[in-house]
């Protein structure tokens, strides 16, 4: 029940927030912030409850929904979900704070959409029924589209449409794969089922598994996004309002990664292992390509957007390295990227609000006039380039470490991405905040935004110095996500060991 509360609070607060605009212009903001604070508290409360779970899941709830098709309202929370749920509530609050002064028209409808997106994201991180998962997956889409299309910048129509078309095309492929999987279950056992645990136990012929895995991979990787499906991302991130960019970069991209490690790999372990080199190569390509393109940008937000492509390349490499270490790294990377990029988008939004441009050629020497903003930009830029002691470093290091065990060459190329990250991050700082002053004096960061960014910085430092907390939370979940373990479970359950090749050496977790 507590899991449903997490989803329903933002969903029910959304129409109220819309309506409340007629009472007061500030009411929707406070309402939305209140709803997410409640969610954050609730999620922290779940951490305490953790022991009461049934082993695999910390909290689980299951109700029938469409019984004819074996579709259930099945939610479950493990360490990975928990971390991402916390991130969602946190970044949701950040998004509301960052739009506090920026959004001045149709405030009610803005927060309506924001809350519905977040509700969808919570659902995605919690759903354990593939049909339910897909419903939440799509619920995120339309309000996000409206956020970009209504409150975005100059090219918003184009960007919003491109975002929707790309992700919808990916989703439909995913949808067909999901339905096909459920149909297979129907053919095998007599009743179709969309339930995660039922499908995990389903034996699938290798060729079919390969095609279905490809469908899942495509659906998720468009959202992630990996090269060559990334072209919607720079446009959408650049044109979205600040709050929208924070949610896009911080949360929506994570849903793609989450889908890969929750569904694509455990459901098709053998096919995923065969496919892993390709996926890792795509990840490495994303790291290098995104980094190089980021360096070439003149638009502040576009630069950050391309850096996202690069950072999520690390996540992809980490996920498909299929070692415990790399997977842990990928999750740290997801969290760290969510915070550092969210903060950078927030700063970009603050700059645009003050200077009415995102073009870095029209900026320079800002440190003198906005020291607080500039100092924070310095902090998050070096965080994003992977400075040791901050969270991104932990993520990237673990990914590289874990991936090296499987594909040393890929890991080497990926490591080169960290050098490129240093180049574009420092270039960003130099072009914008140092050098001769070209802009008029503008007011510095507001106190609310300042406090929010300081908290985000504190989280970065905390995770950078003491990642053990996060790693310990996700460790049990990751162990059960790894193909090797699943293989053992499956063979034991189905008794059809011949259908599967033996696992490679089981992987030791740190």
């Amino acid at each position: 029940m507590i899991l449903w509360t997490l989803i329903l609070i933002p969903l029910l607060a959304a129409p109220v927030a819309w309506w409340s605009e007629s009472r007061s212009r500030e009411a929707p903001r406070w309402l939305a912030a209140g709803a997410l604070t409640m969610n954050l508290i609730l999620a922290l409360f779940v951490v305490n409850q953790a022991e009461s779970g049934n082993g695999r899941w910390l909290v689980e709830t299951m109700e029938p929904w469409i019984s004819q098709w074996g579709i259930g309202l099945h939610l479950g929370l493990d360490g990975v979900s928990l971390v991402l749920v916390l991130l969602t509530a946190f970044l949701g609050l950040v998004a509301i704070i960052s739009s506090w002064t920026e959004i001045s028209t149709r405030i009610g409808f803005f927060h309506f959409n924001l809350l519905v997106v977040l509700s969808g994201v919570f659902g995605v991180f919690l759903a354990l029924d593939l049909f339910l998962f897909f419903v939440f997956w799509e619920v995120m889409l339309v309000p996000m589209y409206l956020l970009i299309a209504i409150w975005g910048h100059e090219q918003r129509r184009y960007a919003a449409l491109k975002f929707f078309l790309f992700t919808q095309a990916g989703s439909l492929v995913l949808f067909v794969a999901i339905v096909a999987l459920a149909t297979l279950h129907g053919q095998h056992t007599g009743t179709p089922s969309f339930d995660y645990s039922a499908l995990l136990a389903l034996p699938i012929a290798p060729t079919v598994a390969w095609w279905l895995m490809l469908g899942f991979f495509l659906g998720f990787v468009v959202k992630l996004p990996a090269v060559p499906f990334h072209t919607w991302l720079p446009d959408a991130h650049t044109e979205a309002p600040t709050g929208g960019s924070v949610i896009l970069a911080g949360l929506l991209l994570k849903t793609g990664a989450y889908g890969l490690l929750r569904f694509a790999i455990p459901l098709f372990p053998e096919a995923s292992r065969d496919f892993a080199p390709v996926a890792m190569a795509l990840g490495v390509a994303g790291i290098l390509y995104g980094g190089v393109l980021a360096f070439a940008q003149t638009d502040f937000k576009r630069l950050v957007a391309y850096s996202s492509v690069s950072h999520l390349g690390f996540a992809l490499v980490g996920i498909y390295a299929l070692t415990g270490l790399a997977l842990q790294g990928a999750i740290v990377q997801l969290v760290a990227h969510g915070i550092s990029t969210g903060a950078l988008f927030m700063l970009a939004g603050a700059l645009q609000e003050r200077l009415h441009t995102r073009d870095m050629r029209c900026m320079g020497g800002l440190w003198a006039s906005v020291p607080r903003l500039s100092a924070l930009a310095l902090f998050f830029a070096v965080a994003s380039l992977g400075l040791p002691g901050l969270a991104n470093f932990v993520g990237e290091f673990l990914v590289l470490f874990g991936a090296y065990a499987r594909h040393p060459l890929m890991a080497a190329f990926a490591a080169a991405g960290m050098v490129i990250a240093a180049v574009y991050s420092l270039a960003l700082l130099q072009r914008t905040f140092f050098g001769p002053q070209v802009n008029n004096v503008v007011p510095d960061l507001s106190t609310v935004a300042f406090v929010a960014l300081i908290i985000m910085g504190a989280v970065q430092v905390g995770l950078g110095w003491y990642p053990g907390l996060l790693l310990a939370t996700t460790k049990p979940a990751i162990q059960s996500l790894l193909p090797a373990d699943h293989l053992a479970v499956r063979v034991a359950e189905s008794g059809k060991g011949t259908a599967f090749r033996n696992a490679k050496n089981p992987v030791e977790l740190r």
Partner: protein
Amino acid sequence: MTRADLMALLPLLTLSMFCILTMLAIAVRRHHPTIAVLAAAGCLVTIATLPFSRSSQSHPVTDLLVFDSAALFYMGLLLSATTVIIGLSFRYLAVQVRQGEQSEEFYLLLLLATLGALVLTAAAHLVTLFLGLELIGVSLYGLIGYLRSRRTSLEAALKYVILSGSASAFLLFGMALLYFETGAMVFTDIGAHLLPATEVSALWLTGFLLVLVGVGFKLGLVPFHWWIPDVYQGAPAPVTAFVATVSKGAVFALLLRFIGDLNGLQVGAVVQLFAVLAALTMFIGNFLALLQNNVKRLLAYSSITHFGYVLVAFLAGGPLGAEAVTFYLVAYFIMTLGAFGVVSVLSEAGRDADQMDDYRGLLWMHPWLAGVFILMLLSLAGIPITIGFMGKFYAVAAGLGAGLWLLVLLLVINSAIAVYYYLRLVLTMVEQPLLPTDDVRVEPIGGRWIAVVSLGFVTAMLLSLGVYPGPLMAVIRDVFDPLLRPMAAS
């Protein structure tokens, strides 16, 4: 004719009686609200008679008609749709009909066309097939051209008369060939001719194809779709809704029975033909919709595409195929009625609201109306929590269950393409309005609440069945499982 036969016939008899009553009432006193209420009551009373007509097995009444649970389900669906359309028409006619024109006969024609549709759902004989089709067709001639002072309306009516006439000619010729070859006019007997032989005679196939041309025309399948955009654009918006839902839905119910009784899907050539039709219909409907700037034309092409999707479910065959078709049709009815309902509510005197500019900034001027329209469009695009998504899910599941990988893939590709033009319309609605928001138009004509109730009903169905489709699925499964007509054997 036994008492049981009469009971089975009750829905048709009731609706016929109401047609006559309406006609007499118009002769006695021309009063728009009275006639509208009478017509709506006719539909509702007929719906109320459906349970009486129900029997445990399918009940043939002479050779002409069969009353089984599928027929009754479709009757209920069609009658509900007509009721909603009457609700939408009332205010529309009050606004549109000018001095010297009458609005009462509109309802009479609507009831007659619905009667034809009901006959089609129960038809088991070539004669009833033709009778039903022509009853719909002839009533529609009048309905499409009803606003006779509009040039586009007349043009659409003329186009429909000519093309529909030639389609009927094909249909008749096809029937003649089938009769010539088999000596039978009852569907099952025509099919029985097929059963022993593994290969079909050329004459049989030709006759079948010609019948299919006639049916394909009514359904607007590519390449028989040429009339759809013009008629949709020219006809008054509620009539467009009627053509898109009741007329097409009844014909598809007929097609289900016809192919089922004939064992049509056992014949490889027929399956291939339908597969090609489905692929063409999806792609061409979609591509033409991409080019449209007129909202009614856009919805017209989108409705063509949707019948391509229905054909995919149809080709899956078996009870699952029939279920998927029926569920999809219910979804299609709901979203199409909603979309055209919004168009008719927005129409001002003299013209329909069919330009993109009519919708610019609608979300800020009429948030509720725009909200309904956005929901309908998202449902047409197949986005979750709407019934359109459940319909698409059913179609995909049926297609995959039958191993129609290629067709399902085409369906998915087309769904992705279709998102573009639905979103364009949504985008138009969220833009800044052309007029200042405070310029609220005065609505002097009463009866707005009826349209509001109709739209509210449709929207409630859209969402409730989208979130909780279980009960409807159970009903549809009940309808098709006990039957297991020959089609199901495949």
